């Protein structure tokens, strides 16, 4: 039995026409975008002149006035601080491993991602060719090879390779911590490197990665806690979030340095670990609020559909609510992670020598007094490159997730 209605009478259908086309011409583009009114034309000319002047001045300074030897001489200091030369291979091993996993990931998941592969391989290769130091050169070339090998392997597109890439990313973080920190004072292969020797970009990146990896789950838990129906859980979450958000990051860092030892008498906690704790605790509060924004955007119907199917509340949260909520806030979260990355430079004030701290010590070297412009320009460039990488990656991730719609 069916409720068939009468078929609709067919009429001759008008042929679909192609959309109106606009031929691209350079002059046309210029006119439309830059010179379409007289005041836009004036603005264009003025801006071009200003930009040209600025670029010329900056170029002149960078090429003929700036003394870049302050950077080249101290490159290792900028990269790893006082990390002992004998253990340098461990840092390189981390880099090689990273390139391997990254190459594998692009190979397995990338779709015509030739640009990404090109960047991945060209970057260490060019630096390796330019490097003056033998060790550095071979390490960088090894990095290139690892990236190429990972990519080639990934192109096989086997299912176990996809698993390997996921496992690789999960295992990478603890592995690197073990590599950098060592296994103990007596360990034959990986003796401990005390954290007061960690420095430079290495310390900055470690603070950032630890901050992201630990504050993320903590922030999600706090966000869920704040929306919990259990009054104590939600009250504690609210108090934590609001207190931390009401305090400047510098204060949190000082608190972590001075108060943690007071709260935990008898336990000596490493200074770097204390700073990491500060970063994590601070970031988690903001993350919680961002994630809560995503949670609030999920319509009631999603919960009802899940409950009606028999899902338990934790399954509903984990399988249905969180994936949607987190996807909705990816841009905000990445923005926060970039901010966290740059905020780690504040650990200078508690005496740690991250990239910014190293910059200050380098500026205190008698040979290079007064070279602030060079040093800070370099540091800005490094921060800029990494921030750009993070936002590019997040855009890729968003595109991939949206392509699924």
């Amino acid at each position, binding site marked *: 039995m*069916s*409720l068939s209605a009468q078929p609709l009478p067919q009429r001759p259908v008008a042929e679909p026409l192609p959309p109106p086309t606009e031929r691209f011409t350079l002059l046309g583009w210029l006119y439309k975008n830059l010179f379409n009114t007289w005041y836009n034309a004036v603005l264009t000319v003025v801006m071009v002149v200003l930009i040209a002047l600025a670029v010329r001045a900056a170029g002149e300074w960078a090429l003929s006035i700036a003394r870049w030897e302050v950077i080249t001489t101290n490159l290792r200091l900028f990269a790893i601080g006082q990390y002992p030369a004998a253990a340098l291979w461990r840092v390189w091993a981390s880099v090689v491993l990273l390139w391997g996993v990254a190459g594998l990931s692009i190979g397995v998941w990338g779709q015509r991602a030739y640009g990404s592969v090109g960047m991945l391989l060209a970057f260490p290769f060019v630096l390796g060719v330019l490097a003056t130091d033998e060790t550095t050169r071979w390490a960088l070339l090894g990095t290139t090879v690892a990236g190429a090998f990972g990519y080639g392997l990934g192109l096989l597109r086997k299912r176990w390779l996809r698993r390997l890439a996921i496992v690789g990313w999960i295992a990478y973080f603890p592995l690197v911590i073990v590599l950098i920190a060592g296994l103990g004072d007596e360990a034959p292969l990986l003796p401990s490197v005390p954290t007061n020797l960690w420095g430079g970009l290495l310390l900055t990146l470690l603070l950032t990665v630890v901050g992201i990896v630990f504050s993320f789950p903590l922030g999600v838990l706090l966000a869920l806690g704040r929306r919990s129906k259990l009054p104590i859980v939600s009250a504690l979450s609210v108090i934590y979030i609001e207190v931390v958000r009401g305090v400047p990051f510098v204060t949190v860092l000082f608190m972590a340095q001075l108060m943690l030892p007071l709260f935990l008498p008898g336990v000596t906690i490493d200074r770097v670990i204390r700073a990491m704790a500060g970063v994590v605790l601070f970031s988690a509060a903001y993350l919680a609020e961002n994630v809560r924004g995503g949670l609030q955007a999920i319509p009631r*119907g999603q919960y*009802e*559909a899940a*409950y009606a*199917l*028999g899902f338990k509340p934790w*399954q509903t949260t984990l399988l249905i609510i969180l994936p949607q909520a987190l996807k909705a806030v990816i841009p905000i979260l990445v923005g926060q992670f970039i901010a966290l990355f740059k905020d780690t430079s504040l650990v200078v004030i508690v005496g740690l020598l991250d990239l910014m701290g190293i910059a200050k010590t380098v500026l205190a070297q008698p040979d290079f007094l007064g070279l602030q412009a060079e040093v800070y320009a370099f540091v800005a460039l490094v921060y800029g490159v990494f921030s750009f990488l993070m936002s590019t990656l997040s855009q890729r991730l968003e595109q991939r997730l949206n392509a699924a*719609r």
Partner: protein
Amino acid sequence: MTQTSDNNPIIICRDVHKWYGHFHALRGINMEVQRGEVVVIFGPSGSGKSTFIRTLNRLEEHQRGQIIIDGIELTHDVRNIERIRAETGMVFQQFNLFPHLTVLENITLAPIWVRGWKREQAEEIAMQLLKRVGIPEQARKYPGQLSGGQQQRVAIARALAMQPKIMLFDEPTSALDPEMIKEVLDVMIELAESGMTMVVVTHEMGFARAVADTMYFFDKGQIVESGPPEQIFKEPREERTRLFISQILSH
């Protein structure tokens, strides 16, 4: 309490009451539904019909009276609620598909996580169900890529994948464009003819006439009148029923 002989009604509601604050939304609903029976509930908006169908799987809590589904009484006991929800499929007005999952994943998620089936088994049954609702070719798409009618058919397949004993439909065609209503109703008619126990809140009188065993007319949180479709359409006992039916049939 755990008698489940086939002669007993699968749904028993006795004097069910529900308040929203001071508003008395359900005012003593009594209803018995037999296995394989198709029940259509209709009535003006705000009459409590949606609230009532949602108390049957505890999306709304009733505050007085008794609801017994397949021998299990709905109480605050979470285990009972979960058992009843697993035996009861529900289809919503707004479909409520999970937008981050493909059609196939939407259907297999609950069988895998709630029933504990293997993925292969769940996917095989999901594909059979998609064939049954007529859209096997959409399995790998996301809900946002489907039309409203297709989404609602996926929602029906998703509920059926749990192999429920009862299907609840809460205004399943009210959010659909006219030309898509038929494709959803056809699926529901096929389901009714296969012997599924169904409780359907709808104003689709063609559907009711075709497959309903019993119709209930709700108004102001009460059942005004109930009976087989012939009686409700041709000789309603209550003036209000006659008036309402003439209103929805006239447009």
